[in-house]
């Protein structure tokens, strides 16, 4: 035991006494992340939200009075046009010179409605043409409001029952917490994994291949220190440092969240997530780091030099990145077997916990498999420290 602690203390001293490296390893990823996300958020904001002082606008042909009376109170500016100018306006809309929608109603729209109301509908039903440009936030917004209005109107005609008749505006119950949880669950696992693997990839080669390269590990190998203690001491100290950096990254991500979703998102994580959720996240992240550190340590011990180690670590980083993006891109089934795949399991578990939808068994499989793989890796690392072929390979 004391051997492990002695090695860990030395690794920490090595790391923290070198202030510049320490600060940049622990804080830099978080700071960069905060900057990028805040910037990205502002960018998204401009890209996707309509300009507040431009009211929704529609250019209409043959708009019936009934619909006009719904649209104008909703803030629409209605411009009547003749059918002849529609093609020209459509072109302008395509070029984003027109921040509006274009609607063409059939001339006999009102007759159809009247027949329908009398129980003798005429077929085919009348068709409304609605043109918008989804790339233009104002046009897109106008389209969204107009289709909602038309839906409501259609509902009042058939009327087997009403939905949200008087509370239309307040009916979206998606809470800010819910929105935040979705964004966190989608983005945080991926970003956190990437930041962690890049941190580990920076630390392990230096700590193991570097020592091998410089001949300082041989000095350790002639002391009574057990090889297994050396392996554990290295893995645990690297894990602790990466964990610190992981915490900072997570905090930075959560702080940048309001900027990213582009609103005045007020949320209290401690209210959103229970202590159990947070403990589970910490356990998943910790075991994921232990796994990553062990993998990176094995690669570093195997490499003949520091340079070789950094070369080999590259593919590991890429594999980790791919595996941690998967949960965001595709919806794989929630079967426990899939949670035997390292990295994927950790990213998916984190995503599940943050989204507040998860299978406890899968979290368990993730944590246990991470630990089992790491134990096997730690054992292999001990063997490697014992092997002169590995330690003194030139």
């Amino acid at each position, binding site marked *: 035991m004391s051997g492990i602690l002695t090695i860990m203390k030395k690794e920490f*001293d090595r790391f923290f006494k070198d202030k510049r490296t320490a600060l940049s390893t622990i804080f830099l990823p978080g700071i960069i992340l905060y900057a990028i996300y805040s910037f990205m958020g502002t960018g998204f904001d401009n890209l996707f939200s309509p300009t507040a002082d431009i009211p929704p606008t529609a250019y209409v042909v043959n708009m019936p009075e009934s619909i006009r009376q719904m649209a104008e109170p909703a803030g629409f500016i209605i411009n009547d046009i003749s059918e002849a100018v529609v093609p020209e306006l459509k072109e302008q809309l395509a070029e984003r010179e027109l921040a509006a929608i274009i609607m063409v109603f059939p001339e006999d729209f009102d007759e159809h409605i009247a027949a329908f109301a009398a129980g003798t509908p005429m077929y085919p039903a009348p068709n409304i043409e609605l043109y918008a440009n989804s790339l233009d936030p104002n046009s897109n917004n106008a389209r969204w409001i107009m289709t909602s209005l038309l839906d409501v109107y259609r509902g009042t005609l058939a009327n087997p029952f009403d939905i949200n008749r008087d509370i239309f505006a307040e009916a979206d119950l998606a809470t800010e917490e819910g929105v935040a949880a979705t964004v966190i669950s989608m983005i945080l696992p991926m970003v956190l994994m990437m930041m962690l693997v890049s941190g580990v990839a920076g630390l392990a080669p230096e700590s193991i291949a570097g020592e091998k390269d410089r001949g*300082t590990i041989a000095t350790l190998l002639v002391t*009574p220190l057990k090889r297994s203690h050396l392996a554990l001491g290295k893995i645990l100290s690297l894990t602790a440092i990466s964990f610190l950096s992981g915490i900072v990254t997570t905090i930075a991500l959560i702080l940048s969240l309001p900027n990213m979703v582009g609103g005045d998102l007020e949320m209290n994580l401690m209210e959103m997530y229970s202590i159990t959720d947070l403990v589970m996240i910490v356990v998943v992240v910790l075991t994921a780091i232990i796994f990553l550190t062990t993998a990176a340590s094995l690669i570093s011990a195997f490499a003949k030099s520091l340079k070789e180690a950094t070369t080999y670590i590259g593919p590991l980083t890429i594999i980790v990145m791919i595996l941690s993006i998967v949960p965001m891109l595709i919806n794989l089934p929630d079967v426990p077997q899939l949670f035997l795949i390292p990295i994927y399991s950790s990213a998916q578990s984190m995503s599940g916990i943050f989204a507040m939808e998860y299978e406890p068994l899968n979290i368990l499989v993730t944590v246990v498999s991470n630990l089992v793989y790491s134990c096997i890796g730690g054992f292999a690392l001990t063997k490697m420290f014992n092997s002169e072929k590995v330690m003194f390979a030139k």
Partner: protein
Amino acid sequence: MEAILRADKLEKTFRLSAKQQKLQKTKEKTKIAVHNLSFEAYEGEIFGLLGPNGAGKTTTLRMLATLIKADSGDAFVDGSSIVTQPGEVRGKIGFLTSELRLEDFFTPNYLFDFFSRLHKIDPAVSDKRKAELFKKFGIDEFAEVKVANLSTGMKQKSSLVISLVHDPNIIIFDEPTNGLDVITARVVTDFLVDLKAQGKTIIVSTHIFSLIEKLCDRVGVIINGEMAVCDSLVAVTGEKTLEDAFFDLYESYAQKEGLI
């Protein structure tokens, strides 16, 4: 006298990589570095391993220090086998070669404490020992200077001192004076004599005849991985100088092998 270290039929063959084959201009896939090597070192003596470059001295000492494993044979260090009890052997010896480096980032003071802890030395004992050794080698002034900024000699002296944090009874030095100026070399050889006076057993390897003549009680001459002769210094040299005795041995070995 009692043998405190006994090497018994040590063997070590290295597999040569293609690159090494080219460098050594050989087509052989393997290199027998040490063959059927046996010797004994007695308690309280300085034992010298003498041999030309590539004779297998460093390989032998690395096997004794458990850094590399013997292919066959065994050695017993104060009763502990290098094959079955390497951990105990490591606690009993102090080993120093140029391939053991100190981390540039730390100071001699820090490293002394670190290695003391690895050897589980009581801090009070370790502090006293550190003060003595640092003073003896003039490291005290440089105790807080990072190893990276020490001179070559000071680095070597720090390595030496740190290899002795646990006050071992058996000390194994590979080429103790290599790369040192005459003054520092003198400090080191004087120290070896000093250690012997304290009753320690010392094994040194070198290709320098004068060093053996000055220091050693007994000597083993290694030629091409094999022990050519192993006896007291007087018995090996006889009336001749050590250098002449060595060349006689070398010639008879070469004739036997058909090299000349």
